């Protein structure tokens, strides 16, 4: 394989990893702070992608999908958290898993009822429909570069909010000891609602950004959900930093696996996870059991 081709795959792997990070960061925070194993997270990714298709068809612009879709899914997340998820805080993880599994079935049927079973393509936004030259023969789509930059900006924003703001401080404190945070006068319920909705909006953002790169099809959320769980676990549950590096690792393993060992490429990601967990049973950046 030539060097430019390898570089191209490397870039694609990074781009896939960064998109995964958007989904996985919400998943890891929702699990770390709310203690909820959220199977419905992939459904929000799927809804984001379908909104990108639907709004894109009507306005011809992905910018409208971003402007309308992300707040809409934030609101959806809020409603779901208030109506269902919030009733399960304090119950064991299995009830939450069961509840969100039921919601996956409901969201899948909602998608079928609204958009049908067809596979849809979403056009790359016109201003970004060109290639960045890479070596003499290859070029890398500008939209992929745009996605990378957008994801990196979001990652930086998440980092800033968590580490540098009062809200982030409360979230981190809530992850360690919610009772104490509540006793100090913080409205933990509202904190959790915001966090869940923000996670939902992030998943939707990933879905919207990914729509022009992949096609939009029924059940697309589930594949992403499982891979995102893999990312979360590799990084260590509750760790956003872990989700970031886990996502890059998975993105690269998947993309390079397809090129280097096509015969077993699909199992590659899971082999990586098994290897990481056998080496560090709590993930790369996970806290030991006693600390949580």
């Amino acid at each position, binding site marked *: 394989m030539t060097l430019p081709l390898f570089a191209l795959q490397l870039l694609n792997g990074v781009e896939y990893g960064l998109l995964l990070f958007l989904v996985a960061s919400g998943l890891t925070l929702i699990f770390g702070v709310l203690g909820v194993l959220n199977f419905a997270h992939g459904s929000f990714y799927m809804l984001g992608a379908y909104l990108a298709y639907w709004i894109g068809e009507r306005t011809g612009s992905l910018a409208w999908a971003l402007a309308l879709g992300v707040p809409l899914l934030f609101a959806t997340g809020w409603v779901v958290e208030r109506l269902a998820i919030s009733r399960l805080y304090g119950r064991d993880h*299995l009830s939450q898993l069961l509840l969100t599994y039921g919601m996956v079935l409901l969201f*899948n049927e909602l998608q079928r009822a609204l958009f049908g079973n067809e596979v849809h393509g979403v056009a790359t936004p016109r201003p970004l429909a060109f290639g960045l030259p890479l070596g003499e023969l290859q070029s890398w789509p500008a939209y992929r570069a745009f996605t990378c930059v957008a994801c990196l900006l979001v990652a930086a924003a998440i980092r800033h909010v968590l580490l540098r703001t009062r809200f982030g401080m409360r979230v981190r404190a809530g992850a360690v000891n919610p009772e104490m945070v509540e006793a100090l006068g913080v409205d933990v319920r509202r904190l959790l609602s915001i966090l869940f909705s923000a996670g939902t909006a992030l998943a939707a953002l990933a879905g919207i950004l990914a729509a022009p790169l992949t096609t939009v099809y029924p059940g697309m959320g589930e594949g992403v959900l499982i891979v995102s769980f893999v990312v979360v676990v590799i990084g260590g549950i509750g760790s956003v930093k872990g989700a970031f590096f886990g996502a890059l690792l998975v993105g690269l393993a998947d993309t390079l696996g397809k090129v280097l060992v096509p015969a077993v490429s699909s*199992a590659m990601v*899971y082999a990586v*996870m098994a290897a990481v967990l056998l080496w560090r*049973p*709590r993930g790369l950046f996970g806290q030991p*059991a006693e600390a949580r």
Partner: protein
Amino acid sequence: MTLPRSVRAGLLVGAIALALVPLSGDRFWVQFAGKVMVTCIFAVSLDLLVGYAGLVSLAHSAFFGLSAYLLAGLTNQLGLVSPLVTLPLCLAFAALAALLIGWLSLRATGVYFVMVTLAFTQMLYYLFSESPALGGSDGVFISQRPRLAVLGRTVVDLGDRTDAHAAIWVALVLSFLLLRRLVRAPFGRVLTAIRINEPRMRTLGYATRRYKLAAFVLGGALAGLAGYLDATLYGFVNPAQFGWRQSGLVLVTVLLGGKGTLYGPAVGAALLGVLEHFAQRATEHWSAVVGAAVVAVVLFLPRGVAGLLEGSRG
């Protein structure tokens, strides 16, 4: 631990009713009852892990699938049809796989354990669905169903609906009684105690990992039994039996029915089967009905259907 008399009577009536289904002579319902009973075995064996040992495994479908595929291989490649040969081989194979996967997975705990088991399930799924030698994504037909011949006369032919139904019924009753006996024995008590407080059990001198591994292997062997019976019922195996959906679905069945009760998951499997069948007839959007039912059970019946049956005790 003892069940209310009404529940025991209900289980007895249910078992007798299932045994009598072939008398109806309706081919569809005999097949349907067979499928439900196979799912019961599958779900009840997972309950040993989830409800007693506290091990939420997503590898359960792996043992189901491995056993089914081995049956296909033994029949198609080696021409082995006697269940006296194939059944022990398939169960042993499932148990061996469970020993290996369990030994590796039990290094992790909690959600990490769930994810390691998921990893093994997915690896096997891709191995079988992407390798043409193993049938690929189309799966494999089993050329002959297992049949038992004594002195040249066929005694049991699992290709026959009634025989297959009877065999599955017997397998279900035996598995259920075995597990019920086991969870009431000291072994089951130790598993329950490990679920509630593992460090304490370790302090008391129990080799907790070995107990968990033993439960994992036993559950895996019974999942293999379910896979074997499923393959004989349909004469067909496919990689979807490995996937995480299959493991997820059986986990949902266990939780819906009520974990840690053994009979709850069996009732859950039956209810889910019936609900799915009628919802499919009633509406195109049947999985929304199933989804709504699942959500309703979680919100209003915290201990599953078994909690409803047992009333508000404990």
